[in-house]
């Protein structure tokens, strides 16, 4: 077997590593939060508590997987699968390093956006099928939030696409050989960062699952492995957003030659993962209407302006 983009070995390695990393993040997040909040976090099971994830997994696999009799069973079972499938599919167009990746699609950016918009069905169907007031409220919030922030996510990426002249993610990385896009596209980077947090509904934008207000939001009725899929799906989303920021704005695998490309990619992505976790330890949750009006009244005009200026600069240069 050969090691090239799209080979079976490559696909299997990426799939397994991404899922394992997402599961390990549960431990990383708890330890880092402990560090920043001056406590220890899970440190009993194995070395530094590393086996905590295995213990959690054993627990979640052996738990009773209850489907409520009042729910719509078809949608209830389908919903957690959608988020896993959609996020894992998004990883297929990410270029991790030269020769490492599943597909170098020439519409990669659009594919990512399509998968992000399909991800909304997972939370909506979960909330709707649970037949529970809190779930429904969570699903309504999630739907409005994800649909709105998708818009700015797409527009903020268009500046990068215009500078590169291609929708392929590998071309985006290669075009950053003489300078990362975070400098010319700083506004786009900030908007993408905010929209990325909202899309993966992490604190401070975890309004769909705000436990102080609506129990656990759309996954109130879920238990066992179905809940586990939502949980791991959220961490997969975190890994995805961090990888995307690395690819679009921080030169992907590019770095000084003393380390191989994949190591640079992992280091950069992990910096953003740690940033998202720190954000959780630092920021309170905004109110729901604040989130929506901030998006539509501030981020949308800003991202359009950014695109307009980028396009004007490119036209003047050519």
């Amino acid at each position, binding site marked *: 077997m050969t090691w090239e983009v799209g080979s079976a070995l490559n696909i299997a390695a990426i799939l397994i590593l991404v899922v394992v990393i997402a599961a390990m993040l549960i431990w990383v997040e708890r330890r880092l939060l402990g560090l920043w909040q001056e406590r220890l976090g899970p440190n009993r099971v194995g070395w530094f508590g590393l086996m905590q994830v295995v213990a959690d997994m054993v627990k979640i696999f052996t738990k009773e997987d209850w489907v409520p009799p009042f729910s*719509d069973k*078809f*949608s209830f079972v*389908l919903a957690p699968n959608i988020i896993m499938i959609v996020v894992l599919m998004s990883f297929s167009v990410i270029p991790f390093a030269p020769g490492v990746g599943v597909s170098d*699609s*020439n*519409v990669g950016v*659009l*594919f990512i*956006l*399509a998968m*992000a*918009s*399909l991800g*909304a*069905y997972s939370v*909506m*169907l979960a*909330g*709707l*099928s649970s037949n529970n007031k809190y779930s*429904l409220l969570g*699903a*309504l919030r999630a*739907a*409005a939030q*994800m*649909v709105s922030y*998708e818009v700015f996510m*797409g527009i903020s990426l268009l500046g990068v696409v215009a500078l590169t002249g291609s*929708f392929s993610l590998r071309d985006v990385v290669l075009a950053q050989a003489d300078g990362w896009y975070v400098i010319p596209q700083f506004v786009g980077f900030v908007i993408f960062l905010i929209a990325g947090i909202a899309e993966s509904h992490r604190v401070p934008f975890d309004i769909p699952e705000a436990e102080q207000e609506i129990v656990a939001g759309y996954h109130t009725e879920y238990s066992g492995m179905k809940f586990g899929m939502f949980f791991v799906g959220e961490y997969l989303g975190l890994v995805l957003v961090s990888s995307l920021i690395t690819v679009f704005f921080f030169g992907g695998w590019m770095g000084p030659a003393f380390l191989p490309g994949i190591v640079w990619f992992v280091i950069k992505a992990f910096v953003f993962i740690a940033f998202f976790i720190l954000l959780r330890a630092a920021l309170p949750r905004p109110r729901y209407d604040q989130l929506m009006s901030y998006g539509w009244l501030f981020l949308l005009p800003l991202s359009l302006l950014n695109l307009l200026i980028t396009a004007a600069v490119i036209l003047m240069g050519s």
Partner: protein
Amino acid sequence: MTVLFYLSAIIAVISTVAVILQSNIVHALIYLILSLLAVAVVFYSVGAPFAAMLEAIVYAGAIMVLFLFVIMMLNLGQRSHAQEQEWLSGKIWIGPSVMAAILLVQLLSVVTTEQAVTEVVEVGVQEVGLMLFGPYVLAVEIASLLLLAGLVSAYHLAKK
């Protein structure tokens, strides 16, 4: 690519039939999303990746989300389920079946007489963009006016 085309075309037809036959509105909607995604794959297999991705983003990703949103707000539940089942039985099938059969005959006669294009030519994103803002710019502008009108009226209705 031919296998991909026929496979996704079959899925599109079956799931569209399922949309009509389903009495549970949420299930019907899931089949409709599946059908739109299958159509996106059809576009991809005949060499239009840009159209395929837009089909997935705009139709399957955005418009259907709004449909689901409305269903969620209305909270139809069991009542509409029973009503749908009532509608889907008996004589109601005759009229639509006859009309659909006439369309099918027309479609088949067109397919059999027309010269089939078997060669797949991939149309890139830039070519689509140049076409839209070159020869078809008038259509784009008219569509944008329509959208603006929709936006203004939605704002007006929401303000009341």
